[in-house]
């Protein structure tokens, strides 16, 4: 299989679908000749033209609401929100409109749209451009929430998201854009709601999301040298969450660590930890569940500080050792 980057995988998923389905189009800031802030749509306006690759004014509320209105009336818009931090401006349209219209209308209408947006720190863009706010949308009934960690997953999940009849918030991680992986050329779909065991192991389950999947895998390799066998599970989608895969893993390993980049306090890790603690897996737990997440601070600018603000490989290694050592 061919290797392409995560960024190319996202672009390919969109391009292939747009070739087949005239209802799909993209709107967003600077997605035309500029190619978007991270270059994801580069080249697309040349192929699809400005009607389907719609450069918008800097008006996050209107473009989000515009996508909702277009979706409600028969289009399948993909909204590129330039940085996921800017969802703060589009929040009403996403949460009070997109997520709720169908329910409020008593089951009429649907809002088949995808909001794609880059999240996370590590680029030196500081506090207003580096957040991981997926916990907000995961809290809102009516939305689905996807966080691919690999090029392969990105392509397959984006296809599924575009095909979904509901609003899907699709988080891309800035630092993953340039990572490469094997990706089939043809279209394929990864079901939304299916976790992936990225590494099998028997001593401890690490549930990691987005970029933390890679850090967990790195940690696992280190730990293997010390004879600790880590299972790494990537939920891939937070809503719906594949509880079954995680429960089964914990029943096997008896230990659970949850890692995300988002601030730990109030992050989705609390949800995952609690769901497992409330499940049949509770009886199998040999040590307390551990959560790793960002510090309770805005993301700082200085690169050393920035790195120290979110979990890194050594933090995961330490957490695993502590968990495995318990009792």
């Amino acid at each position: 299989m061919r290797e392409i980057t995560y960024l190319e995988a996202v672009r390919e998923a969109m391009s292939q679908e747009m070739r087949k389905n005239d209802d799909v189009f993209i709107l967003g800031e600077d997605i035309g000749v500029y190619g978007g802030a991270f270059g994801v749509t580069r080249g697309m306006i040349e192929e699809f033209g400005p009607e389907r690759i719609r450069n918008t004014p800097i008006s996050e509320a209107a473009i989000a609401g515009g996508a909702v209105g277009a979706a409600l009336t028969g289009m399948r818009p993909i909204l590129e929100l330039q940085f996921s931090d800017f969802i703060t401006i589009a929040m009403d349209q996403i949460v009070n409109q997109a997520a709720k219209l169908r329910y409020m209308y008593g089951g009429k209408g649907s809002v088949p749209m995808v909001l794609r947006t880059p999240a996370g720190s590590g680029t030196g863009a500081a506090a207003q451009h580096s957040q991981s706010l997926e916990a907000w949308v995961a809290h809102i009934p009516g939305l689905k929430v996807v966080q691919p960690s690999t090029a392969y997953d990105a392509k397959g999940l984006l296809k599924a998201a575009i095909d979904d009849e509901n609003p899907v918030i699709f988080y891309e991680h800035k630092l993953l854009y340039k990572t490469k992986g094997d990706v089939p050329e043809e279209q394929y779909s990864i079901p939304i709601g299916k976790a992936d065991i990225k590494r099998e192991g028997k001593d401890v389950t690490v549930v990691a999301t987005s970029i933390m999947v890679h850090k967990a895998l790195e940690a696992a390799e280190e730990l293997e040298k010390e004879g600790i066998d880590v299972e790494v599970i990537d939920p891939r989608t937070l809503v719906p969450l594949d509880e079954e895969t995680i429960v089964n893993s914990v029943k096997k390993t008896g230990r659970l660590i949850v890692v995300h980049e988002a601030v730990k306090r109030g992050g989705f890790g609390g949800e995952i930890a609690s769901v497992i603690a409330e499940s049949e897996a509770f009886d199998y737990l040999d040590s307390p569940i551990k959560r790793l997440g960002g510090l309770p601070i805005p993301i700082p600018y200085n690169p050393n500080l920035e790195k120290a603000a979110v979990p890194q490989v050594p933090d995961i290694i330490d957490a695993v050792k502590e968990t495995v050592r318990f009792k």
Partner: protein
Amino acid sequence: MEKTLTLPSHITTEKLKDLYKQMWLIRYFDEKVDQFFAKGMIHGTTHLCVGQEASAAGAIAALQDKDKITSTHRGHGHCIAKGAETDRMMAELFGRETGYCKGKGGSMHIADLEKGNLGANGIVGGGIPLAVGAALTSKMKKEGYVVLCFFGDGASNEGSFHESLNLASVWDLPVVFVCENNQYGMSGPVKEMVNIENIAERAGSYGIPGKAVDGNDMVEIINTVYDAVENARSGNGPSLIEMKTYRWKGHSKSDAKKYRTREEEKEWREKDPIQRFKEVLIEEDILTEEQAKNLQEEAKQEIDDAVKFAENSPEPSTDTLLEDVYA
């Protein structure tokens, strides 16, 4: 019986009679709702458009069936004018299974997608971006419909208003923005909330036509909206129409109306849009006093029947609670 009125050709004398009855339907509907709220027979809150019947009935009369509207928290009039069945509306207010939203939405969320009513909205300004999106669909799919977007004077101070009008303008979308200026938000007088004489002047910020009309004058409304809608349909882009009117009742169910005087209320009641329309129709020999009375009676009867329908409809089962979130 020859019309000497200048009106769009689809406004036949039959249609004019219908409109007269429709205005009464709107008024009786909201009068009933008012009574039920006063008696505590309806749950929640409501916003009545008594006194504003012309802006709903007149503006929507200018449309073709395929055209769409977005509405507001004060949306019963728009909904009736766009062809909704008053019994299912009333059932919704009673929270019944037979209601437009199966009892899940209530007054602020009635939608009638089949008739092109994209829904009321509880968020002030929340529907404006949706209208832009629906207009985008019309343009991209060449569906030939125009979207009429209702909102209030208060809503014109929301960021969504600004972003949406700009977006519709630069994308040349078939949408007509209708500001129902009833002189107040919940209590805030438009004179204190806006520093210009006419909200219609705000069209200037977007390079689109803006016009203020007497919002209690059916004939002026129909003609003005018709021109704007047909202009939009021809590909000439959006425009903004302001209708000066007045809500006779309080903002919502509990309102001592301390922010305005009884004299002012009286003045506006003398500009009763239904009465004025009747005078025109009689003057033009379209209607006799007797016919007018009959139409009014018919309207009253329809609303009484709607109430019976609502009262006799079953409550939704709590088994339906989890349904309708996702499509």
